Every structure is written in C-alpha cells, then in structure tokens.
C-alpha cells in the first residue's frame, strides 16, 4: 500500500499545514512517510510544492518521480496544472477553483479549469466560498484537505485528530472553522 501526493499552491497558502496534518496522521496510522517541502526564497509568494509519500513499506526517494504520483492536491488551479506530468495515467487531481492572481500574465481561469478537467479523474472545489461558509477564508487549505480525504489511504479519524491538535491552541472559533472547512470540503468532493 502506497500513496504519492504532490501538494501544490502559492507561498503563504498553507501547503505546509496540509503536509503537517498528513504527516501526523500517517504517524498515527503507523505508516512510513517522507515529505519534501520548500523553504526560503520561493516561499515569498512564489509557486511552492511538497512531495508527500506514504507507504507501509520502505520509501527510498524524498521526491516523487514523474508518473509516480497518485494525486495532485492543489490550493490553486494554475499550480495544479504545473504538476500534471507527475501523475500516473489514472491519477487524480484535487484542486481549488479559486485563482491566486499575483502575476500579471495569469491565464484565463476557465481555460485552466478546462485543462484540469481533461485529467481522467478530477475534483474541483470552490475553496474560497466553502472556507467563508466555514467561518474563515484562511481555511481554504483545510477545505482542500477535506476534499482529498476520501481518496487518501489515511484514517479520517487520524486526519481530524491532527487538525484538532493543530488548531486547538488558536481558540475555539478557529478550531471549529477548520473542522467545518474539512467537512465541507469532504462533502463537496463527494458531490462533484
């Protein structure tokens, strides 16, 4: 049993929080994992990605080879497209439809979404509105994690337990918003 995931987004969108939750859930589930992430210069509003590998056996490389990823999980649609060639032919794209426009030449978002839909399996969720509905627009990353959760080899209880541990210290409203964001993302993915 193994699962290789490319996490993608823009620096500051909370990719590393998604990775944190998956890491800790994997540890709780007794899985091996390796997770390569980006620090430093690129984090300043640039494209960031994290290679997340889960397995019940030895994981060698910290990086996923092209064609090796089971999932691209992206908080931003253009960033999802950047890594399509990492997906195996029947891999899945789980992405937000909300563009992050901090560059002058951002393509037409409809064309981006159309290209994502060409992947054999894709789940596109409106993370911005779902996060607002959950109580904070900052929780878009957790909406996406919720959307991906049904396709992950991790136990839902381990994911939810880690989200609780991560946000408990930031007050009840923040915790509840993130738990709701997870649930809304999950529901949206199943309905799509």
């Amino acid at each position, binding site marked *: 049993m193994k699962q290789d995931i490319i996490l993608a987004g*823009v*620096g500051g969108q909370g990719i590393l929080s998604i*990775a944190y939750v998956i*890491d*800790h859930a994997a*540890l709780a589930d007794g899985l*091996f*994992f*390796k*997770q*390569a*992430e*980006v*620090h*430093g*210069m*690129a*984090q*300043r*509003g*640039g*494209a960031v990605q994290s290679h997340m590998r889960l397995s019940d056996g030895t*994981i*060698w*490389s*910290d*990086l*996923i*080879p*092209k*064609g*090796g990823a089971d999932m691209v999980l992206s908080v931003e649609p*253009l*960033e999802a*497209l*950047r890594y*399509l*060639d*990492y*997906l*195996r*032919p029947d*891999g899945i794209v789980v992405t937000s439809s909300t563009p992050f426009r*901090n*560059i002058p*030449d*951002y*393509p037409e978002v409809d*064309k*981006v979404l159309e*290209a*994502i839909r*060409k*992947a*054999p399996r894709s789940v596109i969720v409106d993370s911005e509105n779902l996060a607002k509905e959950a109580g904070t627009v900052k929780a878009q990353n957790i909406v996406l994690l919720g959307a991906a959760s049904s396709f992950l080899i991790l136990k839902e209880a381990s994911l939810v337990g880690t989200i609780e541990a991560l946000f408990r210290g930031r007050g009840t409203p923040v915790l509840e918003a993130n738990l709701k964001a997870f649930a809304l993302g999950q529901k949206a993915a199943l309905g799509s």
Partner: protein
Amino acid sequence: MPRQILLGDEAVALGAVHAGLSAAYSYPGTPASEVLEYLVRQAGETKAFTAVWSVNEKTAYEEALGASFAGKRSLVSFKHVGLNVAADPFMNSAITGANGGFLVVSADDPGMHSSQNEQDSRYYVQFAQIPGYEPSDHQEAYDMAREAFDVSERFGLPVLMRLVTRLSHSRSAVETRDARAPNELKKGAGQDWILLPVNARRRFGRLLDLQAEMTRFSEESRFNLLQLNDKDRSFGVIASGIAYNYFREAVAADSAPPSFLKVSTYPLPERLIRELVGHVGTILVLEDGYPFIERQLKGLFGIAGKTVLGKMSGPLPASGELTPDIVRRALGREPLASLPASGLPLAGRPPQLCAGCPHADSFKALNKALEGVTGSNVFSDIGCYTLGALPPYNAIHSCVCMGASISMARGASDVGLYPAVSVIGDSTFAHSGLTPLLSAAKANTDMTVIILDNATTAMTGGQPTYGSGPGLLRLVEGLGVAKEHIRTIEPLPKHHDKNVQIIKDEIAHRGLSVVVAVRECVQEQRKKRS
C-alpha cells in the same frame, strides 16, 4: 523510544542534543536555518544547553570552537556559502584540533533553490583533511550526528556533516535513543592551540599522520554499504548521500539489483571502492553536487579497462539538482508512464516581495531618485530585498555575497563611478557591512549606503538581528560617518516624495552618506499580532 517527525535539519539537531550538546551557534541561511531554529526552541524549553544566532558564520564558528576548547560538545551550522565566511577558523581548527566533540553542519543547495552557487562542502572536508558524513535519510542524519561527536573526540578534530536541501527540508519519522550527558568543563591548555609556526608545523604533521586511520574509520563505518551482484559483473553504481535514495528507488522492483556501494563517510572508503571497481566493468557515480567522487575515481588517467560514468562524462547533467527521474534515465530505465503536461502555456510564478513590504517603498523611492541616471550603479546584497532585482522594481544590479554591496560600491566610486549606491539589509549589515563601512568612512568615499532596517532577518524566517533601530544609527555614527549625512526615512507610500528628496540630497553630497530606511517586516508584524 517513540518515532518523532523531524526535518532533516532537525534530525541532525536532535542527534546533537542527544549526544550531550552544550553549545550551538549559527547564522541563518537556507537550507540550514532549521538546525538552529530547532535548537533554540529546545534550549528555551530545557535550558540544558546554549543555542545562539550569531552575528555571522565566522563568529559562530569561533564561538563553537571556543566551547569545544573548553571541553564541551559544540555545534556550528550554516549554509554552504556560510562555510566560506567561516573558512579561516575552519581550516585552522583542523590544525589546532578540537577538544570536546565539535560538529560542523554545512547544508549545500544543489540546484540553487535559494543560493548564489551550488558549491559542494565535501571539498572543504578534503581541503581541511578532517572526517565527514553525508546522510541519505533522516534516521542517518540523527545517528550520524550522535556518532560524529564521538569521532570528533576520537581524532581530536572537527567533523563536518554535509547536508543537501532535499534532506534538510524533507520530513520523516526518526527513532531516537536516550541522551548522553554533556561533557565536564576542561580547563587549561597546552601549546596545541597556539598556531605559531613552530606549533602549527607539529600539528599539521599530526593531521597528516591521522589520514590513514581516518580512511580506515571510513572503510569500517556501518553507514557505508557494499552489495555485489555475483551474476552481473558488467555494471555497478557508487552512490553518495541522497543520490543513493534515487538509485534504490529506480531499482526497487529488481529481483537482483546491480552491484552498488553506498558512500556516507569521508575520506573515501578506499577499500570498498576498490572492491566495487574490481567487481564490475562500468561504474556509474551518482552524487548530488559536484563530481567529487567521480573526479577522484578517474584521476587524470582513468582506470585501465574500466569505464567511469557520471557528471563529467554523461549521462548525468553537470549542474543542478539530481532527481529520481534523472537517475532513472542514467540507469537506462524507461521513464514511468504519466499523464501528459497540460499543453497550456503556464505563467511562471517567481517569488516576490510581500504585499505591503517596506522594501517595495524603499525601491520605489530609490528608483525615482535615480530617474534619468543611466548605467549599472546600485550594488545590492543578500536578503529579501534581492527580489528588488525583479520586475516591477528592477532596482538593483548586483548580489554577490554578504556585505559586498558596500565594499563594491566603494571600489566603483574609487575608480570614478557616480553615483555609487549600496543597498543592504540590517542583518546583512551587521554580518559583513561594518568593516567595509568603516573603511569607506575613513576615506569619506563618495557613495550612498541605504540600509533597509526591517528589524529582522526576514528571508530565512525572522531570526533576530544585531544591527537595528537606534543601535544601528549609533553603530553607523561610531564607524565614522558624518552625523549630518546619516539620514532616516520611513518607507511608506505617504512619505514617498520626502524620501525621494532625502535620497537625492544624499546622492548629491560628494562624500559618504548613509540613509537608513526604518520599517518593520510585515511578516514579523503579522506574527506578533497572531
């Protein structure tokens, strides 16, 4: 012991703590910053050791060496180019030797994710002729850090651990063991640390005499692994550090993988290399960074009857970071089937200054002040503000090494360039800007130094800074800059016109002037609010 989730950097740090660490020093730099970040957090909780952000890497190295001389176990960490800054004490500490265990952690950045070059710290290991480690995963990073202190005390030498970005910034679970107690303080000293020629010659002789024993240490290390395939004597692999993972990934499905030698310690384990080379006809060397092993293997004349492949003679690129795909191809394996790329032209998304960043306002003011001036004349430095090189600012014209903006502007001014402008951040100024400004002040060089004081070391995540606020202004004055030409601006849009005028006035002054742009980093402000 339970499994802990750690970055590669943190695994090294925790290994050091469990080896009985007493003191750790560093200057921030990607990808090494998280070593000391972790130690600062731990030290804050346990008070069991000292962990300090030093003013620069040379200072950090000397502080750690002093702790080692006092008999305690100490660590210094920095990015690869930080070792250039610390190269003077580093090279000489191989002659003095260490007393308490002394671990030097140097994190390389193949592919230059956040660096000016991709120099390979293994050359420094060879240059200083000390033992070195190169972990391939997190568990090794932890285990090697622990062992390195014992090896350092066994040889009486500093030991260098080479990391690369991919391990430094990858997370995995690590099994830890019980901590060893710190060393007792050892007072007193012999002649070994006084590098007068008479002592230095004796000590260098000792270092040379130790080389054979160091090679044996490397040959016997449990971290190196030789596995010979008796059925296939045509082809074998030497893989070091993280490249070993890519090799194992590519051959994971083989019932009988090719012969291989995993190299994790330096000096090179010669006997193991001879065994592998004796066993196969063609050797592929896989290493992230420079062709360090490959070059030594081939020498000038090659190995008769053998073919050595790698970065010098294909099939691996000579520059950039290795990836599982590159290594797979080099091993002659077909790429995995994958989805095609989208075909849409994907706009790049380079890093950029944050919304509301004070540097943005400083660059807008500087650009306006220099309107109409042609030629390359804004010497800059290393930090977030290096992003001022990118559109829409296009405001700076050099970034070489820490502190170089001031010294280079002086050199350019000396030969007639006007205006000569230097742009440097507060932390970089404290790191390496003081001495060149002292020198320029003595000469009253015709140049304008703009210090961007955002009260933090921002690019690497907000570590403390030594040269900020009123203290910075006193420093500048103390270095000999005329008080009337030390000007302060607040880089905000509402002050734009005033700031442009101040910069213009100081450029017009035909002597040394310093303009300090004071406004806190927006990321740090945000952290304080949350």
